[in-house]
């Protein structure tokens, strides 16, 4: 007999956040996709009665949520850790304006940088922006904490942040369905300029209100159940929170623990009482010594980052080894194997652009998306990547530094979604402040890296309903770019010609590479006609191999094998296309000078 209960769900932390937001009666939710946060908005979009949307960037997403809150709705903004940098401007003032309907901001951090460019610890934002922050350890708690965050937000009149991390967002666990909540706040126009118009005179008054509601929050934190002392062996006591709590429970199951469900503000009295209970106090937290710094500032002696690493994720073994060295199991040595890094898909349109760039003597200023993989061999065609949208402005800065000599040596590459996120302002700057760098927009009609999210240029909303599709070409012309080209990146030769022409120009130029992502549903369901290699015609020149396409593989000949099989004596091997993997883009065929690659059936 199955012991599965009807109201027991198995879901990821992100799915649980979505369910929590739904159960809390969220009316408006806006955010920008970014690993590990993306599935929150995707899942929330499937519930009835919640307006969900993908915003062009995180700043817009948070501002939409602030607006919805001002109008009395419970509102949610979701983003990855670096997205909060983009949304920081409204965040730091939203604590002053306070809320009407509850306002919750989810920050999904990525310790270990599984899919990110840095591993910033966003608990620091709660401190700096003066907002409360809750930190769940597992999916079940994530759902409860989202509901709690809304209650706190309305009680204290402040936005509340919930910090997820990869090992909470992308961990699945058991979650129970709960009651639907309703907010006491009703929607409507509620004018309150003294609280909402942050001119200096008003802002100064609100500055005091921020201190008052944070003080109230500190008092609540002293007695709240989410900050709990778990009794145990007091020889060694731990203060911890988030996913680190789970590692402490496994490594030292007998020890006394103070689990902080709210990592800011901190309950000083409770921490002091716990510190007095235990002989030795150890703070276990991932990344920065956030709790440790503030606890030490209270004058409480403790250990922390002198034992626990301040980089990367923690796990049970790291926590145990840091505190009780030599108690873990003896491990087998790893075996050296060929690595298996991620790669662009077979038939990916980006490959056509990066293959061409790899043959040109240019500095490629890159950006954030699947195309960052253009950095990897054999293409090796990306020279910098800093943050969303930076490709355009970095190229302009380089062009200015290099002067006239550099105008045809710097190219920037950005995806459609990233361009809309924060590349447009960079392009306006390039035109306004007159440099001649070339921008390549890789328009594959989707936000691909995060798993196929719609965007303002894709023509569909988050729910798949028809929406206005931003005309990228018209936009580039409207901001004053005199030369805008369009290419089909699968046509390698034509693309090369256009890129050369655009790069040589002494005025700003944009090349829009237009071809859909092969992971789009309509691309996956079509039956592509695969290309085939004529093994007799293949001369082993390796031109096609240089594309790095996962559908093309190289077989090296054994000694004497070339002659035996009727090839030139010096031929080193042959290439072959895997017809199951081939997506029929034809880039390899356009490179083969020996007509050895043809479309199947031709």
């Amino acid at each position, binding site marked *: 007999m199955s012991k599965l209960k009807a109201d027991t769900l198995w879901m990821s932390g992100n799915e649980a956040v979505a369910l929590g937001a739904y159960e809390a009666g969220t009316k408006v939710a806006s955010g920008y996709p970014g690993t590990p946060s993306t599935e929150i908005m995707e899942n929330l979009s499937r519930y009835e009665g919640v307006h969900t949307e993908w915003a062009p960037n995180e700043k817009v997403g948070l501002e939409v949520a602030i607006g919805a809150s001002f109008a009395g709705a419970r509102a949610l903004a979701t983003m990855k850790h670096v997205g909060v940098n983009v949304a920081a401007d409204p965040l730091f003032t939203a604590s002053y304006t306070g809320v009407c309907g509850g306002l919750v901001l989810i920050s999904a951090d990525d310790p270990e940088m599984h899919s990110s460019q840095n591993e910033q610890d966003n608990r620091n934002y709660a401190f700096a922006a003066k907002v409360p922050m809750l930190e769940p350890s597992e999916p079940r708690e994530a759902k409860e904490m989202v509901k709690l965050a809304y209650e706190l937000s309305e009680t204290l009149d402040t936005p509340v942040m919930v910090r997820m991390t990869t090992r909470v967002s992308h961990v699945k666990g058991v979650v129970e369905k709960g009651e639907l909540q309703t907010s006491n706040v009703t929607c409507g126009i509620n004018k309150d300029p003294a609280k909402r118009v942050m001119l200096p005179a008003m802002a100064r008054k609100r500055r005091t209100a921020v201190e008052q509601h944070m003080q109230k929050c500190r008092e609540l934190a002293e007695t709240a159940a989410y900050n709990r002392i778990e009794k145990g062996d007091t020889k060694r006591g731990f203060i911890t929170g988030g996913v680190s709590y789970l590692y402490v429970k496994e490594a030292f199951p007998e020890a006394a623990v103070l689990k902080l469900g709210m990592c800011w503000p901190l309950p000083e009295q409770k921490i002091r009482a716990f510190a007095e209970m235990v002989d030795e106090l150890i703070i276990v937290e991932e990344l920065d010594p956030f709790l440790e710094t503030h606890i030490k500032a209270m004058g409480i002696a403790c250990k922390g980052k002198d034992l626990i690493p301040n980089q990367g994720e923690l796990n049970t073994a790291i926590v145990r080894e840091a505190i009780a060295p030599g108690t873990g199991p003896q491990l087998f040595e*790893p075996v050296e194997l060929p690595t298996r890094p991620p790669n662009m898909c077979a038939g990916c349109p980006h490959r056509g652009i990066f293959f061409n760039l790899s043959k040109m003597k240019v500095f490629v200023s890159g950006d954030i998306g699947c195309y960052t993989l253009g950095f990897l061999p054999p293409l090796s065609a990306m020279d910098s990547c800093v943050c969303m949208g930076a490709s355009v402005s970095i190229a302009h800065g380089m062009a200015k530094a290099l002067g006239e000599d550099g105008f045809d040596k710097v190219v920037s590459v950005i995806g459609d979604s990233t361009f809309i996120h924060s590349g447009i302002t960079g392009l306006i700057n390039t035109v306004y402040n007159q440099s001649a760098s070339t921008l390549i927009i890789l328009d594959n009609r989707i936000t691909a*890296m*995060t798993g196929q999210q719609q965007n303002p240029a894709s023509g569909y909303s988050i729910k798949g309903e028809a929406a206005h599709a931003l005309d990228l070409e018209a936009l580039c012309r409207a901001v004053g770019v005199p030369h805008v080209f369009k290419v089909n990146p699968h046509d390698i030769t034509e693309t090369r010609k256009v890129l050369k022409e655009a790069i040589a120009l002494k005025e700003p130029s944009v090349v829009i590479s237009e071809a859909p992502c092969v992971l789009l549903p309509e691309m996956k369901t079509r039956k592509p006609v695969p290309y085939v290699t004529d093994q007799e015609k293949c001369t082993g020149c390796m031109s096609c191999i240089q594309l790095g396409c996962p559908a093309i593989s190289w077989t090296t000949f054994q000694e004497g094998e070339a002659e035996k099989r009727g090839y030139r004596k010096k031929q080193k091997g042959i290439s072959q296309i895997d017809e199951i993997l081939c997506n029929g883009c034809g880039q390899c065929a356009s490179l083969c000078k020996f007509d050895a690659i043809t479309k199947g059936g031709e």
Partner: protein
Amino acid sequence: MKESGNILFSGVGGQGILLASEITVYSLMSAGYDAKKSEVHGMAQRGGSVTAQLRYGKKVYSPLIEPGCVDIQMAFETMEAVRYLPYLHKDSKVIVNTQRILPPSVATGKSEYPEEVLGHLTRKGIAVVEVDAFDLALEVGEVKTANVVMVGALSAFLPVDPALYEEIIRTRIPEKFRDVNLKAFAAGRQASK
């Protein structure tokens, strides 16, 4: 059978490891266990090495398996059976789908696919169960059920009544594919005995 355990799923992005791990989780939960599973999305999914970690027991805290503590590894590709050796111990069991997917350095002629790679496991006394999941899936009539063949192979080592698995397959897989998946499960279970 142990009352708690750590299962590591390893393979290559796009092989459909997730479905296999989901059926396994539901079956363990049906049998009354708590469970947690950890996966990584985003950049890691573009054809690179991929893992999912599943832990079950009376109460599970950490979603991550400690090095040296994997009880069973389910490898969906031959070489990926060996990549996580420091996570295994001498009594670990490794179930391998004996398929080869060439990594980019091998496909471009820069390195060789290692020969006899499973020897790294057997020489340490680790039990290796080789399953030709593709062949078995073809035999039952649908190559796409290779995942469920692997679920069947794993089930022989877990404290779950096979009837619970069958119930999960019945309720979670569309009717059209139900029978062929049940056959795939049975074929996999048989193969690892």
